[in-house]
C-alpha cells in the first residue's frame, strides 16, 4: 500500500542522450498506472528508475512519501515482472517464488504458507515442482506474477509482461492482471506499447513520446480529448484521422486546395490539423444539417470487412483516412461519398500539434 510520486524525473545517459526529460506523475495508493508509448520513448527507462535498476539523473522518486532515489532495488520494497519473465532457470517454481522471501530471512513455515497461497491464487499449485523450462509461456508468465505477489510489496512494476504471449492468451492474462491488481489493491506501474492493453488496464494512463509525457489522465478522457496529434494518433485503433488544413479567408483549405466552409469553427492558427475518430463520420444523405460540422468528399480506396464492422479506407483532401462502419459496407473502390463530421466530434490541433 503506497503512493508513487515522480517529480521532474530526468535520465541522461553517459553519452549525453536524454532518455527521460523531466517527468511528473502522481500515482495514488492502489491505482494502476500505465505508461504507454512507442519504443524508445523512455517508458521502460522510467520504470527501471522507479525499480532502482537505473540511476536517476535528476528529480525525485517517492514511494510511500519517502524519497527512494538512493535506495537499492531491494530496499524499495517493489516487485517487478519482466518482459522475458526472468525466472531462475535452475530453480523449481516453488524456489523461484520463495527466493525473495528466503533472502529476507523469513521463517521457513511462513515462506511455505505464502508460496502456497500465491500459487493457489494463480492456479499454479500443481506446477510447484517443475522447472521453468517445463512450463508453457502462459504458465511462466503466471510464475513471474507469483514471484511478485508472494512478496506482498508496496508497488508492482510490470515491464511489457504480455508481449511474449500469443494474442488470445494476452487478452486472457490482461483481464487476470487487472482483477488480481484490484483484488490485492497494490499500487502498480505497467509499461506497454500496446494501446489496447493500456486503455483496458489503466486507472491512470500516461502517454509518453520522446522522453516526455504527452498526456496524463483517465483512459477514456484521453481518448475523447487527446492533448496532441501524437496522442490522437497513438490511442485508438484504427487511429484518429488527422487532416492538415490552412485557415483561409472564408474557411479552411485542405492540402489539395479544396475549400470547405467551416461555420462556427474558430481556427486562429494559420496551419492547423483537424482530427476525427473513424467511428465519428456520418455518410450524408443530403438532408442533414452540417452546421458546426464539416461536409467533406471522401473517395473510397478499399473496404476491409472484419465481421461486426467494416473499415472503409479513403482519401479526404489528399489525406488518407479510415472510417469505421457498422456491419457491412456497400461502398466500392472509386466511389465518392459525402460525409459529415459533426462539430462536437471534431478535434482541432494547432500547427504545433497541441490541442486547440
Amino acid at each position: 500500500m503506497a503512493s508513487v510520486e515522480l517529480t521532474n524525473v530526468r535520465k541522461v545517459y553517459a553519452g549525453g542522450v536524454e532518455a527521460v526529460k523531466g517527468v511528473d506523475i502522481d500515482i495514488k495508493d492502489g491505482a494502476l498506472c500505465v505508461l504507454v508509448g512507442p519504443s524508445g520513448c523512455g517508458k521502460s527507462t522510467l520504470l527501471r528508475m522507479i525499480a532502482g535498476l537505473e540511476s536517476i539523473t535528476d528529480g525525485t522518486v517517492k514511494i510511500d512519501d519517502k524519497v527512494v532515489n538512493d535506495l537499492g532495488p531491494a530496499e524499495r520494497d517493489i516487485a517487478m515482472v519482466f518482459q522475458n519473465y526472468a525466472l531462475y532457470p535452475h530453480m523449481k517454481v516453488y524456489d523461484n517464488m520463495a527466493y525473495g522471501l528466503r533472502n529476507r530471512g523469513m521463517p521457513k513455515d511462513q515462506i511455505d504458507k505464502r508460496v502456497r497461497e500465491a500459487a493457489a491464487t494463480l492456479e499454479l499449485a500443481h506446477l510447484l515442482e517443475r522447472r521453468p523450462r517445463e512450463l508453457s509461456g502462459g504458465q511462466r508468465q503466471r510464475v513471474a506474477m507469483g514471484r511478485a505477489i508472494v512478496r506482498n510489496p508496496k508497488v508492482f512494476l510490470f515491464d511489457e509482461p504480455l508481449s511474449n504471449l500469443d494474442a488470445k492468451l494476452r487478452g486472457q492474462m490482461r483481464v487476470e492482471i487487472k482483477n488480481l491488481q484490484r483484488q490485492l489493491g497494490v499500487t502498480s506501474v505497467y509499461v506497454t506499447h500496446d494501446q489496447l492493453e493500456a486503455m483496458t488496464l489503466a486507472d491512470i494512463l500516461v502517454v509518453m513520446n520522446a522522453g516526455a509525457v504527452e498526456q496524463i489522465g483517465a483512459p477514456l478522457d484521453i481518448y475523447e480529448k487527446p492533448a496532441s496529434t501524437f496522442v490522437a494518433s497513438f490511442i485508438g485503433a484504427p487511429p484518429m484521422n488527422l487532416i492538415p488544413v490552412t485557415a483561409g479567408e472564408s474557411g479552411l483549405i485542405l492540402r489539395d486546395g479544396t475549400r470547405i466552409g467551416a461555420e462556427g469553427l474558430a481556427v486562429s492558427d494559420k496551419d492547423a490539423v483537424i482530427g476525427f475518430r473513424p467511428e465519428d463520420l456520418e455518410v450524408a444523405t443530403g438532408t442533414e444539417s452540417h452546421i458546426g460540422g464539416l461536409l467533406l468528399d471522401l473517395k473510397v480506396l478499399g473496404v476491409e470487412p472484419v465481421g461486426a464492422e467494416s473499415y472503409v479506407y479513403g482519401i479526404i483532401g489528399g489525406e488518407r483516412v479510415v472510417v469505421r462502419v457498422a456491419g457491412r459496407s456497400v461502398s466500392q473502390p472509386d466511389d465518392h461519398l459525402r460525409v459529415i463530421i459533426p462539430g462536437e466530434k471534431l478535434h482541432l490541433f494547432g500547427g504545433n500539434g497541441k490541442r486547440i
Partner: protein
Amino acid sequence: MASSTRVTFPNKVLPYLLLAPQLAITIVFFYWPASQAIRQSVLREDPFGLSTQFVGLGNFKRILSDPNYLNSLQVTVIFSIATAVIAMGFALLFAVMADKVIRGKGVYRTLMIWPYAVAPAIAGMLWLFLFNPSMGTFAYMIRSAGYNWDPLLNSNQAMLLVVAAAAWKQISYNFLFFVAGLQSIPKSLIEAAAIDGAGETKRFWTIIFPLLAPTTFFLLVVNTVYAFFDTFGIIHAVTGGGPGKATETLVYKVYNDGFVNLILGDSAAQSVILMVIVIGLTAIQFRYVERKVHYG
C-alpha cells in the same frame, strides 16, 4: 538445437577429396602412432634393440606395481587438481571483474587473452627465469623477504612453480569461456535477483554460479586434459621432472622412460594407459557437457 540442414554434394567423390588432407593428417599423426604404441606395449625389446618378444600384459603389470609409476600418478593427480582449480578460480574471478568494467572492456579482455598465445615451453622458460634461485628477479625478492626459495632442491616449491606456470597459461582460455558464459546469462535474471533482495555475493552463488555450471564442468574436463597432457613443455623447461621425481607427471614419465631411457615397452604401456584416460575424459565431456541448459 542446431539446425540440421544437410548440405548435399552432387558429386560423390568431391566430399572425400575435401576430407582427405584432414584424414591423412589424423591417420599419420594420431592413429598410426597410437597403433604403434598399442603394439609396442605388449612387446619387450632387448637392450640392443636387436630382438623383440611378445610379453602380453607383462609391461602393464610391471609398471602398475612400480613405485615410481605410482608416485608419478600421485604427482599427476596433485598437479592436475591444483592447476585446474587455480586456473579456473582465477579465471572466474577475472571474468566476473572484467564483466563489471565499463570503460576499456576490450583492452582488458585482449590483455587477459595474451598468455594463451605463449607456447608452453616459452611460458616455462619465462617462469624459470623469473624464479630461478640463482638469477630470477622474483626469486631474489622472495629471498630478500627472508624466505628460503629453492625450487631446484625443494620438491614442494618445484611443484608450486610448475603449477603456477601451468595455471597462468591456462587462465586465459578459461577466462574466455567464463566471459562468454557470463554474457549468456540474461541481465534481467540478475536484476530480478537484486529486486528479490539478494546482495552481490549472494547473487553470485545462488544465480550466476549455478548457471555457469555447464561452462565450469566443460572447463574442468578441458583443464584436466590440459594438465595431464599439454603441460609437458612447461615441466620440461622448468624442472625436468625433478627434484628427484617430485614433478614427474605421467606424460613426462612416458617421455623420460621412452625417449631418454629407451625402455620402449614400459613407455608404450604407460602411453596406452594415458590413452584410456583421455578417452574416458572425452566420453564424460560428450556425455554431460552436451546437455543443454535453457535460460528464460
